[in-house]
């Protein structure tokens, strides 16, 4: 059973298109995240939701819009894709309280914008 699953794993699209990445976790965690790994290999936080409420919103262009229909799902929608959006996007989840610092990651979704 995959704990944190993301779809699609690979996504190739043209500039200007709109695309979504979906994430689901079956760990019963309260908090979910989107991290972006750019070409320099740094993992940077983009958003965090706790029980459907947005709690972290880093300086991300508003073309990126996360949506959390319930605490087990966190989707990422990207409008008007740009070349610089090419990256690997990782979904993650964590518990609240003790253990909140430890993240469980999905396998990543590699987005390539042409």
């Amino acid at each position: 059973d995959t704990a944190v699953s993301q779809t699609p794993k690979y996504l190739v699209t043209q500039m200007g298109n709109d695309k979504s990445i979906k994430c689901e976790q079956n760990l019963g965690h309260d908090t979910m995240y989107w991290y972006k790994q750019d070409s320099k290999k740094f993992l940077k936080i983009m958003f965090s939701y706790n029980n459907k409420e947005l709690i972290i919103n880093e300086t991300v262009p508003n073309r990126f819009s996360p949506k959390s229909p319930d605490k087990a799902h966190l989707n990422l929608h990207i409008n008007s894709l740009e070349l610089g959006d090419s990256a690997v996007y990782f979904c993650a989840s964590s518990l609240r309280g003790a253990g909140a610092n430890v993240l469980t990651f999905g396998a990543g979704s590699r987005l390539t914008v042409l």
Partner: protein
Amino acid sequence: DQQVKQNSPSLSVQEGRISILNCDYTNSMFDYFLWYKKYPAEGPTFLISISSIKDKNEDGRFTVFLNKSAKHLSLHIVPSQPGDSAVYFCAASVWGTNAGKSTFGDGTTLTVKP
């Protein structure tokens, strides 16, 4: 502003020997530190962590050392095994609210030769 740095992009060791991976941070607010291991085409997986109230934490073959005054931590793997070959990410966070917001280094690729 790169708050967490892993200055060695790669490390190669012989099977059975010790692997030492290093990490430096600049933000004094960080009080919880983690190491993640990542295989190709997979997400990072949690390996070991340490709170700033400790200077050492051990889990089997893995030991993390923290030197708060130097803002430096290291991961020791002994003995190293070929299956340990992966990218290792150091991460720093603040315990408490938004604890899952981690700042990552850019990783060290460890190769363990049989």
